[in-house]
């Protein structure tokens, strides 16, 4: 049995992951903004087999609330074996271009608040000399695209921060897992037309659980995004800048 903290527990990908964790009997501490949804998910996971489960309502952008939340999670779970940070928002790129305020807010949600949480989590796990930190970043963080670079740059920050953290924590046995999903059919992407590259949250969830078990460094989900992003990253900027992506 693992003791798992999920922040952003009501996201579709997180919920799909939690169902698998619940079914194999892990203890869960679920954190998200919406209390009603949290309660519905907790009830569902209990039916699916979660032996112990507690929830907490928190706005991750309220950095001053993080420490107390981590304290409560740890006291409920005993210790945090795995922390999964799964929240995020998909900014409206066009609106961001005409609003500095919105751009900064999106960066705060998708990057700054994550960094704040990671800093606290890393120190706790470093002290215990055990644990796994996993964050849902995105393929969008591999290279900024004209249609989505506010989100992409926030995820790029998270990805870079995580790779540094991985180096730092490796000697003390703490694993850091960067999860990079591609297009996922969730409420966050409800407005998009879905093509062959789109995956269901359940598939991403299975990939996350596997990555946690194997303590992988970076996983692309589904796997085919790895070669795709290899090509995308390899393109010279002089070519990339001309692409309508």
């Amino acid at each position: 049995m693992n003791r798992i903290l999920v922040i952003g527990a009501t996201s579709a990908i997180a919920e799909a992951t939690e169902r698998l964790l619940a079914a194999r009997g892990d203890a869960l501490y679920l954190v998200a903004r919406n209390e009603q949804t949290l309660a519905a998910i907790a009830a569902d996971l209990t039916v699916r087999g979660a032996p112990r489960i507690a929830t907490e309502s928190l706005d991750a952008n309220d950095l001053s609330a993080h420490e107390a939340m981590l304290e409560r999670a740890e006291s409920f779970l005993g210790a945090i074996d795995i922390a999964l940070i799964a929240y995020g928002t998909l900014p409206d790129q066009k609106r961001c271009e005409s609003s500095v305020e919105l751009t900064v807010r999106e960066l705060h949600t998708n990057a700054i608040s994550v960094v704040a949480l990671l800093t606290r989590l890393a120190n706790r796990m470093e002290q215990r000399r055990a644990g796994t930190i996993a964050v849902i970043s995105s393929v969008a963080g591999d290279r900024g695209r004209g249609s989505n670079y506010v989100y992409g740059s926030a995820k790029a920050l998270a990805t870079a921060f995580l790779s540094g953290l991985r180096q730092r924590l490796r000697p003390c046995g703490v694993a850091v897992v960067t999860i990079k999903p591609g297009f996922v059919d969730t409420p966050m992407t409800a407005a998009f037309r879905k093509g062959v590259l789109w995956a269901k949250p359940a598939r991403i969830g299975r990939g996350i659980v596997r990555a946690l078990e194997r303590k992988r460094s970076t996983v692309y989900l589904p796997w085919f995004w790895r070669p795709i992003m290899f090509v995308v990253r390899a393109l010279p900027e002089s070519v990339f800048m001309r692409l309508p992506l």
Partner: protein
Amino acid sequence: MYGLRSRYAAFPAIPVGATILPYGNGRSYGDSCLNPGGALLLTRSLDRFIGFDRDAGLITCEAGILLADILQLTVPAGWFLAVVPGTAAVTVGGAIANDVHGKNHHRAGTFGRHVRQFELLRSDGQRLTCSPEAHADFFGATIGGLGLTGLITCAQLQLQRTPGAGMDLEIIRFANLDEFFRLSELSDQNFEYTVAWIDCLSRGRNLGRGLFQRANHSANPMGHAKVRMGHLAMPFMAPFSLVNAATLRLFNFLYYHRPGIRRRRREHFQSVLFPLDSVANWNRLYGPRGFYQYQCVIPEQTGPEATAQLLEKIARSGQGSFLAVLKQFGNLSSPGMLSFPRCGVTLALDFPNTGARIERLFTQLDEILAAAGGRLYPAKDARMPAELFRRTYPRWREFARYVDPACSSGFWRRMTQGEVVLDGAAPPTVRA
């Protein structure tokens, strides 16, 4: 298309004059789950369990959950759904809205009989907790109500005890219709699940020959193997129907004469109850024009005679497919105003869509059916004449009063075209 973030979400706001229809997993065969020119309200996202009482066998869940998901959870705990249709890939909401039946109809009746309660969300925002006791009229209208009375958000179902995932199955060959009815009579006393496959091409003294399947949940343990969906698959759309006179004759001959008959054997419930679920996208076999299913029920008195007439017509036409199923319904009443099952015999056949040719056959079958006092199953229908529906579902006008003003479907418009639906009757009153 509209979605829902949770069961607490408001009924979607649609433009004035537009219509919407709840859409589960889309396994209905016709236009009862479609709303051409209108909107669909996708319900698969409502897939959370709410509670599972392992002592009483009561499961409470959101309406977009698949029956397969429920079985996966409950079978290891010793509980089975009281009624399952021929596929586990349907949602709870869809099972209620079509008041589905299964191979145990003679024992358990329809799905709706085992629904303790459900929440109905109307487009005006009202949430009605419907049960046989509370809002019983909406309960009766919504069971078998084809999604037209509003959105079912969640439901509570009574399960039945099961010793495990295994079933004891017997297959018996029968030479004609008389033998079928004799076997069915006999088997229904000792077997919970009975159904027969029919060779729809056989004629004369072989008319209605086939294989009779009877099964019970097995008391002997069997591993709780996962409910497997689509481990085989039809990977692409056939360019034309692979089901045709030649392939059908060959298949039916081989299947009827297959070896290993009459030996009792243990099988996983999946292969007994949901044989088609193991082949993903089997419908592609029929090519881009697809297929129709003709499923009717004929009352007990006229059943044997009319079944023979129907089968004779079908055999003579040379049309049909390997899916041809015969089963006797029991006399347990169905709770829905528009529920399909009634005491008698039900015949279900798939037909490749051959255009005018198949429609001519259907018209002839309709005549036999109407004369025998039978009716067709809306969940399987894409072509029934409106007049036949209105005559054979006499409560349709009463039902119409419960249809949500925002809801409609292709099927419903087809059946009510040119009719004054509400007839000046006052809409039903909702009491708290």
